[in-house]
């Protein structure tokens, strides 16, 4: 049994200890969250903490299996696992049971399963497999597009459930692509898109559009160092907008001002295209494209937000942005959650002493809002320890990923890092009100078999790969 001895020696014990620490802390906090005087035994199987104990045991068994299986199994079966899980994601849309307005669960007579929790593991595996075989040159669109497709396919399927949380988790895997060489501009553009998205919701779109036009003209002035071009462009756009505005005002009367501005900008662009072509003014052209893109983005976000997004998602974003205050409606959860955590103070109210949690003021306390219990009963110090443990684990995993010899293992490692990071950030962020309410579990902490096994599998497969980092995969 030389192999298993090797496995034990080369296994990263730090990660395992952190894993066990988080799982046990989670278990105790679930006990506190659903605590009641009638069922005080932590092993009481009729209660969530009792069941979680079973899930934990099962998760440990899962972890051990993940370690025992040959590392090459994951490499060779990556696509098969991915395909199988995608099939489940597709099937859940048809055969799934609708819970809280989303078809995310397969319900069997004695247990239920959330395939998206496992699909995260499968997608990370597939991404690793793809980038390993393609020599991972992510500077080329030929590689970026298929890699993106691997991520976007499950993102799309989960969005259809609809399960916005899981969709965002898949999107987070783009971080892996960035690490592996994708242009930072894609990333920066994404960031800007997010900023513009929020501005669209917060600011009058017409004024935002005007601001964008002015910004673009200023950029042109900086780029060309000739104010006449900027001023000329401004005058042309203003004149065309004014004409359109008057026509609309007296004849059509039904077109929004920001659409008029967008059309005016487009027409102005066509008018000056000859100038751009002759003078080879690349900078002006790029800025113009950027402006056009932004305006289209603003208008489509506005449309999408008001006409496509489901009501509850729109409400959640509205509440986060302070557009809508509604402490007893949609904002109730967040409000009570912040009260719970805020009332914890520096050292907390003590284990099982949290009044907010004990008396059920926060819904979903053992799953999505488990952090309330930590914040209220353990205070800032307890919260710091939990967040510190996650940070330590993530930095450890980055370190482990970087020491891999195979691209496969490294990409997979970064996949694990991305998935865990987005989960922790969004889950805690929503509990303290800096992220909209997106129902995703806190890894290893939250109550629930599927998520716990999913995360365990995700982590331990990586630890298995790491244990054999000196062996060649092929």
């Amino acid at each position, binding site marked *: 049994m030389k192999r298993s001895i090797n496995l034990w020696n080369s296994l990263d014990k730090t990660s395992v200890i952190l894993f066990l620490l988080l799982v046990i802390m989670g278990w105790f906090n679930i006990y506190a969250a659903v605590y009641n005087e009638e069922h005080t035994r932590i092993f009481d199987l009729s209660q969530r903490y009792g069941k979680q104990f079973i899930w934990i045991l099962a998760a440990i068994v899962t972890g051990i299996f993940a370690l025992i299986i040959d590392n090459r199994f994951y490499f060779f079966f990556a696509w098969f696992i991915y395909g199988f899980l995608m099939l489940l994601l597709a099937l859940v849309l048809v055969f799934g049971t609708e819970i809280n307005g989303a078809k995310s669960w397969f319900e069997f007579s004695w247990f239920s399963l959330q395939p998206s929790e496992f699909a995260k593991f499968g997608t990370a595996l597939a991404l690793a497999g793809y980038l390993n075989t393609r020599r991972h040159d992510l500077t080329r669109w030929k590689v970026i597009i298929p890699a993106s497709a691997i991520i976007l396919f499950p993102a799309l399927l989960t969005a259809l459930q609809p399960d916005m949380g899981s969709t965002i988790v898949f999107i987070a895997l783009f*971080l892996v692509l*960035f*690490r*592996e*060489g994708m242009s930072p501009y894609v990333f920066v553009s994404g960031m800007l898109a997010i900023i513009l998205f929020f501005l669209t919701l917060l600011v009058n779109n017409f004024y935002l559009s005007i601001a964008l036009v002015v910004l673009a003209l200023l950029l042109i002035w900086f780029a060309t160092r000739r104010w006449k071009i900027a001023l000329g462009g401004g005058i042309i756009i203003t004149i065309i907008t004014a004409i359109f505005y008057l026509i609309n005002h007296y004849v059509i009367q039904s077109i929004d001002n920001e659409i008029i501005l967008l059309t005016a900008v487009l027409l102005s662009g066509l008018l000056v295209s000859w100038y751009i072509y002759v003078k080879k003014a690349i900078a002006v052209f790029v800025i113009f494209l950027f402006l056009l893109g932004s305006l289209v983005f603003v208008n489509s976000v506005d449309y999408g937000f008001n006409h496509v997004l489901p009501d509850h998602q729109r409400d959640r974003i509205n509440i986060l942005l302070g557009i809508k205050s509604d402490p007893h409606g949609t904002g109730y959860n967040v409000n*009570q959650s*912040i*009260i*719970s*955590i*805020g*009332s*914890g*103070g*520096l050292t907390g109210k003590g284990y099982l002493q949290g*009044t*907010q949690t*004990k*008396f*059920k*003021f926060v819904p979903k306390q053992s799953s999505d809002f488990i952090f309330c219990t930590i*914040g*209220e009963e353990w*205070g*800032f110090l307890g*919260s*710091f320890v939990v*967040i510190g443990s*996650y*940070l330590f684990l*993530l*930095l450890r995993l*980055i370190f482990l*990923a*970087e020491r891999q010899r195979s691209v496969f293992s490294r990409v997979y490692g*970064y996949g694990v*890092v991305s998935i865990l*990071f987005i989960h*922790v*950030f969004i889950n*805690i*962020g929503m509990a*303290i*009100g*800096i992220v909209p309410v997106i129902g995703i579990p806190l890894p290893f902490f939250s109550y629930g078999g599927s998520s716990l096994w999913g995360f365990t599998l995700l982590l331990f497969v990586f630890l298995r790969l790491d244990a054999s980092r000196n062996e060649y995969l092929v």
Partner: protein
Amino acid sequence: MKDPFINRKYIVMALVITGFLALIIRLFVIQIVKDTYRLSADNNVLRYVTQYPARGLIYDRNGKLIVSNQAAYDIMVIPSQTSVIDTAEFCALLDITKDIFRKQMRTAINYSRRAPSVFLKQISDANYARFQEKMFLYPGFYVQPRTLRKYSRPVAAHILGYVSEVDEGLIKKNPYYKSGDYIGKSGIEEAYESELRGQKGVKIFMVDVFSRIKGSYADGSMDTVAVQGEDIISSINIDLQEYGELLMKNKRGSIVAIEPSSGEVLSLVSAPDYDPGLLVGRIRSENFARLQSDTALQPLFNRALMASYPPGSTFKPVNGLIGLQEGVITEDTKFGCDQGYLFVGCHLHSSPLNLPQAVANSCNSYFCQTYRRVLENKKYGSVEEAYIHWKSYLNQFGFGSRLGTDFVNELAGFIPPASYYDRFHGKNRWKALTVISLAIGQGEIGTTPLQMANMTAAIANRGFYYTPHIVKAVGHEGKIDPKFTLKHTINIDTAHFESVILGMEGAVGGMAGATARVAAIKGIAVCGKTGTAQNPHGKDHSVFIAFAPKDDPKIAIAVYVENAGFGATYAAPVASLMIEKYLRDSISNKAMEQRILELNLEENIKEDETEHKPVE
């Protein structure tokens, strides 16, 4: 191979660290910087349940219980905790209709789904007993005990006042009171509210998100205990009070009886009155509205404190006293009377008379001439000066201003200041004869029955009084406001009082021409003075003041019977019966008692009203 993007691991690390740092900073802000969340959490979970203390009891001067408490039960409901119930059975249990059930449920739901509200007020004991047994069948409903007033006898409503729910205006002004609390209104209940109410306590419970009580907060260490209200020992004699009200049945007017040696009010009757029990419990608001809208009888109007009459001849002893003290007459000064003095008429009696005789005969001439001498006294530069001096004596007797009793709604009465006449006649343009009617207690002067009783007590005391008060002691330690033990001395020699008292004794005791023989009681030296208060609206009011016994007086009394004519006719017998009742607890002149009990002056009043109906 060399990884060209190896440095991007730092960016990923930075991203992770930045993200977590943002979480930590936000946590720092909400957990450590801001402290409002702890308060919000407490507000969420803590329920302050007020513990109501029992209101203090009220006893009479002999320790007889007058006002006590009775338990009442309100059915409360928390709509969110109710479930589907058998409405028909529930309604039958509480003797209500389904319509009432639906209406009350709607009201409760509109008020709050999670907070308790009153479903049914003050159910009967029988209903309570039945409901208590079946309560477990109706989740969300529970019984809230409250205390209501209970009166041992249906008397003394004006003295005791009543208790009612606080209104919004008061809640805003006084933070002690919360919606649904009770407060004393009028009488002892209002004057001694802060002593009677005690101190509310609070129990702090923890509740869950459904407002269900989960246990007491901090093991009850933050709770406060309700302190029971202090008992009040009233100065009234409840038997005398009851008797007085009986005598005044079917009449209008008032009786005020005071113990001269202490200023304690023994009895205070204002007729018509009402049964205090009418203003208790569920029937309260309906009855109150009815009493208030009774403009004919005005049962809520306390005549003893709030009705101002010209005192009439009962005022003569005071004017005689002032004349003596001012030195313008002596006990032996005699004035002739030819059935009147100038334009003031007088009845037929022997003439001339000295002061005691004049008091006993109630001679108008005598007091007009005395009053003229008082105002034309050379000692003072002018009539006005002398008038001001005369008025100061009246003020010493407690006229013209509030006495400062422990009644909350006491009228000041009216003694016209000199400027009052200046306004009508011009400065220095009026003379003694202008105001001569004041000599016999008529004219612009206005006094209340309480003030007249106090004057009588001052005469009985030969020159001093204690501010009348209705409460003998607060609590069983016998605390009392020190202002009630403060002696008010009148600047008139004791010897002068004896002259006047001699006359008052004669008026009752059978001196020649005595006006109040009817008030005599065998074996008790009663001193009295009749009076007739002019009533421009109809038959004059019958007035009588008296005290007894002459030496060491135990009771001073003023009786007003409206629309009853001369003082001797009705007021004097009433006073006599009251005195005998108080001093002997039995009545010797049964015939007179019977006559008074059977007397119904409401007939007179009805005529009076039709005669003087305002022109519309």
